[in-house]
């Protein structure tokens, strides 16, 4: 038991990445027959079982990590024991722990919902789902810019496959759009990284944050330009406005569980904006540029979202536009750049993720109840479960539009409270309230079309419509309603516990803004109190090599700071080898004269 606990604490944050990764590999090895044969396949219960176990393990791990991080401790994991900034590090702080819990709190119910029927509609659903989780967890945990890119690619690759899950014309067509946009975004990501590396000489987040204020003005501008390019990329992922038009269409064609899990994908973009543009580029120039751009972007995105929602023709598009609007609200809060506003942004972020997912699930339910009318906003016969569906819709509408007492309202209140020092306070308050009003109007409109004006079902047994209506399901698709209830009750708990949660968010925002703390923990210092870090690359300045002759390494005294004590003592040397070394040392006492070359005997 002791050994298990030691193993656990030694390898702390990496388990969140390893659990979904190993699950996905095991699921790949289980094989996968064609989509048609999946429901009869004997391995399908095994796949589902492995998925459940893994997601529960992941959720437990995430909660334990949240518990670990909540006292303000930052855990570092140096991959391959290469210390930062030379190697890649994983960093578990309050923000990453929060995002991990959010990911799994969303993923576990959706996985359970999808495991009834949706996962038989295409191949490798569970595999891709777990690769997506792996990419998400990695992106939240990593402390290295290039590693962030790699994890982004992993989660995007999984999302490409998940988007076309279930196949069909529309999915492939929108799939091409989605992949093209994201490939272009990846290209921009790489260019941004190149500019940062070329000017700073490091890609470790803490090290970049430390080096940026020390750069020469020309190099500094180049680095800031790189950072702003990354901002554009994260904006594409988060679907902020000038680059976010892809979202409502794309999410509308995805299958219900996929659309629901995709609501966390936009939040990865928000997380990255907070982490990279908010804290890593922590200098006046980039902050002033970002603040002046982020606020109008946020305002326009939130207004555009609701206007699009008012004009939407289908329920899934409508949800997409509402998500766009909530992204705008979060961006407004981030643009204020103070601790209170960031705490509010985080509070609203969790709310908007869960409510968006619940709404996508509800639109799946409504679609199944309406038969041929699907989710189009046309007048249709009354749904068989119209009472419960309309009640759930009403609850979701209240939560999403931000009416009291629900968490959407609390989130917006926190944001408005944080505007007190902003010169644009009035504009922000007017826009946020206006967005709430417009979303109430939009919800009223679709509530009217879907529920209020529903016609009386055909009762003449000879008509086609009668048969069609009778063929509609009496109940919601299996597990669909329960998953919605689960997410909504989670949101109610989130609302009731708003006090302590808000306190946690505040601590998180405070910790995020404390760059000195990060540097102190992630980077090491030598005995002159200088940070051990990379130097700008100089082709003439060659380190000692085995070809370069015997010169004393001037940095040898740094070794104890970079390599852990255990390694220095020879922990990695096997017992057999250890014994050999000891034997040699005891057998052959060192003669100082032996080292000298002796004259050759004639």
């Amino acid at each position, binding site marked *: 038991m002791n050994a298990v606990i030691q193993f656990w604490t030694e390898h702390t944050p990496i388990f969140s990445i390893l659990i979904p990764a190993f699950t996905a590999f095991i699921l790949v090895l289980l094989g996968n027959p064609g989509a048609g044969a999946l429901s009869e396949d004997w391995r399908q219960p095994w796949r589902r079982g492995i998925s459940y176990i893994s997601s529960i393990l992941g959720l437990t791990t995430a909660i334990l990590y949240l518990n670990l991080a909540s006292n303000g401790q930052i855990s570092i994991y140096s991959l391959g024991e290469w210390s930062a900034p030379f190697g890649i590090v994983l960093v578990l702080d309050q923000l990453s722990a929060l995002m991990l819990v959010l990911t799994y709190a969303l993923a576990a119910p959706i996985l359970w919902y999808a495991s009834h029927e949706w996962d038989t509609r295409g191949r490798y659903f569970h595999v891709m789902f777990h690769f997506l989780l792996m990419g998400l967890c990695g992106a939240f945990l990593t402390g290295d810019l290039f590693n962030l890119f790699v994890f982004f690619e992993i989660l995007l690759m999984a999302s490409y496959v998940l988007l076309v899950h279930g196949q*069909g014309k529309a999915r492939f067509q929108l799939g091409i759009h989605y992949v093209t946009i994201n490939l272009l975004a990846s290209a921009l990501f790489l260019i941004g990284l190149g500019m940062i*590396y070329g000017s700073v000489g490091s890609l470790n987040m803490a090290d970049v944050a430390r080096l940026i204020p020390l750069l020469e003005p020309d190099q500094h501008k180049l680095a800031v330009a790189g950072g702003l390019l990354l901002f554009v990329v994260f904006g594409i992922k988060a679907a902020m406005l000038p680059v976010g038009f892809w979202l409502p269409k794309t999410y509308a064609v995805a299958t219900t569980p996929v659309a629901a899990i995709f609501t966390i994908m936009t939040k990865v973009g928000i997380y990255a904006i907070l982490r990279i543009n908010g804290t890593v580029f922590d200098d006046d120039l980039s902050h002033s540029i970002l603040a002046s751009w982020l606020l109008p972007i946020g305002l326009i995105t939130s207004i555009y979202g609701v206007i699009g929602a008012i004009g939407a023709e289908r329920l899934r598009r409508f949800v997409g536009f509402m998500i766009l609007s909530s992204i705008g609200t979060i961006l407004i809060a981030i643009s204020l750049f103070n601790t209170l506003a960031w705490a509010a942004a985080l509070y609203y972020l969790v709310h908007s993720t869960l409510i968006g997912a619940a709404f996508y699930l509800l639109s799946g339910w409504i679609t199944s109840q309406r038969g041929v009318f699907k989710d189009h906003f046309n007048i249709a016969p009354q749904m068989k479960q119209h009472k419960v569906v309309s009640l759930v819709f009403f609850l979701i509408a209240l939560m999403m539009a931000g009416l009291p007492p629900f968490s959407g309202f609390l989130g917006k209140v926190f944001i408005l409270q944080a505007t007190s020092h902003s010169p644009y306070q009035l504009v922000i308050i007017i826009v946020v309230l206006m967005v709430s009003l417009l979303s109430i109007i939009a919800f009223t409109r679709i509530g009217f079309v879907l529920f209020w004006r529903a016609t009386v079902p055909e009762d003449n047994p000879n008509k086609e419509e009668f048969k069609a209506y009778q063929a509609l399901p009496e109940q919601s698709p299996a597990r669909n309603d329960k998953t919605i209830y689960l997410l909504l009750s989670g949101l109610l708990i989130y609302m009731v516990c708003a006090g302590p949660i808000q306190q946690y968010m505040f601590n998180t925002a405070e910790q995020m803004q404390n760059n000195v703390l990060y540097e102190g923990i992630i980077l090491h210092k030598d005995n002159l109190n200088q940070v051990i870090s990379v130097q700008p*690359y100089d082709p003439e300045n060659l380190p000692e090599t085995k070809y370069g002759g015997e010169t004393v390494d001037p940095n040898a005294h740094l070794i104890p700071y970079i390599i852990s004590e255990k390694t220095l003592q020879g922990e990695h040397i096997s017992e057999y080898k250890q014994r050999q070394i000891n034997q040699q040392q005891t057998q052959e006492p060192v003669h100082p004269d032996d080292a000298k070359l002796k004259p050759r005997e004639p």
Partner: protein
Amino acid sequence: MISLEFLLASAIGLLTATGIYLILRARTFPVVLGLAMIGYAVNLFLFAMGRIQVNAPAVLTETTKATDPLPQALVLTAIVIGFATTAFIIQLALRSRYETGTDHVDSKEDIVPIDPREDEP
């Protein structure tokens, strides 16, 4: 006059311009080609971010100069990822062509009302 820097910079610029032009085309195949072009441009750009050195290997040997090996490692990763995504989007485009019967990116086939050859003298 024509230095290595000039060559590399103009190559990156040309590749990007070609790529953007191709991405804005209406058929999937030029779009995929455009993505590949932009991928090459990005790889060259990343490579150049380690500063251009002539006659300097990335591996430390007895030479007196060496290039920064890190951007080369980054480029390698980017190439692999770009290769995989290009393969994926080609497959996706083929499948889309199969499903919709057209290789237009929006699956909207505008039938040209006039045969352009009619206007030929």
